C-alpha cells in the first residue's frame, strides 16, 4: 500500500519503551484511501509529500519506507 507523508519528525527523547530506537522517525501518512495513520519510517529519512510504501504492520503499528 502506498501513501504520502503529511508530516514527520525525528524523535531524540523517548519514553522507556522506545529508548532503544532513538533517534527514530515518526510520520503521519495519508494513504491512497484518504485515511491518515501514524506510523514509523525505517531506512532513509522522509519529508512532507514524499511517497512511502507500507512494508509491514507490527503490533498494530504501520511501518513505512521511502518509495523509489
Amino acid at each position, binding site marked *: 500500500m502506498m501513501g504520502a507523508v503529511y508530516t514527520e519528525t525525528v524523535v531524540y527523547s523517548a519514553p522507556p519503551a522506545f529508548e532503544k530506537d532513538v533517534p527514530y522517525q515518526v510520520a503521519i501518512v495519508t494513504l491512497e484511501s484518504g485515511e491518515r495513520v501514524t506510523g514509523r519510517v525505517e531506512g532513509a529519512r522522509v519529508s512532507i509529500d514524499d511517497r512511502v510504501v507500507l512494508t509491514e504492520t507490527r503490533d*498494530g503499528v504501520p511501518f513505512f519506507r521511502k518509495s523509489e
Partner: protein
Amino acid sequence: MRPVAVVGAGKTRFGAFPDRDLLSLSVEAGEKCLQNAHVSPFQVEAFYLGNFAGPSFVGQNHLAPYVSNALQIHDVPATRIEAACASSGSAFFHAVSAVGAGLYDVVMVLGVEKMTSQSTARVTEILASAGDCGGEMKAGSTFPSLFAMIARRHMHDFGTKREHLAAVSVKNHANGALNPDAHLRKVITLEQALAGKMVADPLTVYDCSLISDGAAAVIVAAGDRARDFSDKPVGVLGIAQASDHLALDQKSDITTFSAVKSAARKAYEMAGVHPADIQFGELHDCFTIAEIIALEDLGFVPRGQGGPCSAAGFTARGGAKPMNTSGGLKSKGHPVGATGVAQICDVVQQIRGEAGERQLARHSLGLAQNLGGSGATCVVSILGEL
C-alpha cells in the same frame, strides 16, 4: 448566566521541589488563596480540583477530598477534573458554570501537579497517555513529537521558520526572568535557543515547556457578592470549553486547533468583545509552535502570520498584544494540572495592577487559553474589571 467574579488567587512558586509533596503544595496555594479572598474554609460551598496524573506521578487517587479536607474544607462536593494539560482550566470552567447557574455563591478551584519525583523518561511516558494510546503513541510518539509534526506542517504550509519558534522562547524567558515565582528565571538569546539540544526535530529543549511542581488556586464567587470579599474582584466576562479528537491523524488540518477556535468564538460572544479588544493574555505555550498557532486561532493575527508577528515583537511586553507576561509554560513552568488556574491567577494579577516589574500599561481586559493534549480540549476565559 448570572455575573461571576474571581475574588481571590494564590499560587506556590513553580519549580523542582524534592522536599515538597502534592499535598503541601496544594495546601500552600489554597491557604494563600483563602487569605487573599478573605474567605474562610467553612464558607466554601464546593471544591473543584484540576489534576492530570496524580495517580501516576505520586500514586494517590481520590485527590479532590484528599486536598479539600487538608484545607479544612469539609463536607462539600469535592470533585477532580482531568483534561490533560487543560485539567484546571476545565475545573475553572465547571466552577464558573456552577456559580453562574446559581448552584453556589462561593467555590474554590485548585490545580496541582507534582511531577519531578519521576525520571524524564517516565514523565514523557505519563504525558504521552494524554494522546491516543491505541494509535499514535503505540508508534513511538511523544508530546514533543506531536507538536514537532504540527510545527513541520505549519512551516511547510506558511513558511514558519525555526527563528520564529525561537523568538517565542526568547520572549517568554525574558518575561519569566522578572517573575519571582517562575521555575526558570533565565534570559536566553536567539542563538542559544536555536542551538538547543534536539528533542523532536525541529523542536529543541528551548521550544519545550518545563517539567515542574506547583499549585494554584482561585475563589470564584457570585458577582453580586464579590465586593463582600475583595476590593479588587475580577469579572469572568466570557468562558467556554470545547473538544476535538485526541489523535492528530484524525484531524483534517493540524496547523489549527478547532477546539481553540470554537471555545474562543463562544467566549468572545459571551463577553461581547472582539479579539482586537483583548489587551493581553496568557497562552498555552506547551511548545513554542502552540503559542504561534494560538495567536492565529484566537484571531489576534491572520492565519499563518503567528511566526513573523512573534519575531517582530507583537507579543512582547512593549508590543501591541503582550502575551505570557508571566513567562508562560516555557519559563514560569508547567505543572500540568496547575497550569489552567495559574493562568487565571496571572491574568487576575495584571488586571489588579499587581504584576510588579511586568505590569502592563493597558490591563483591564485579558484572556487565558488553556490547551489539553494536542488540542482535544481547550478552555478560553476572558477576564476584566468588574
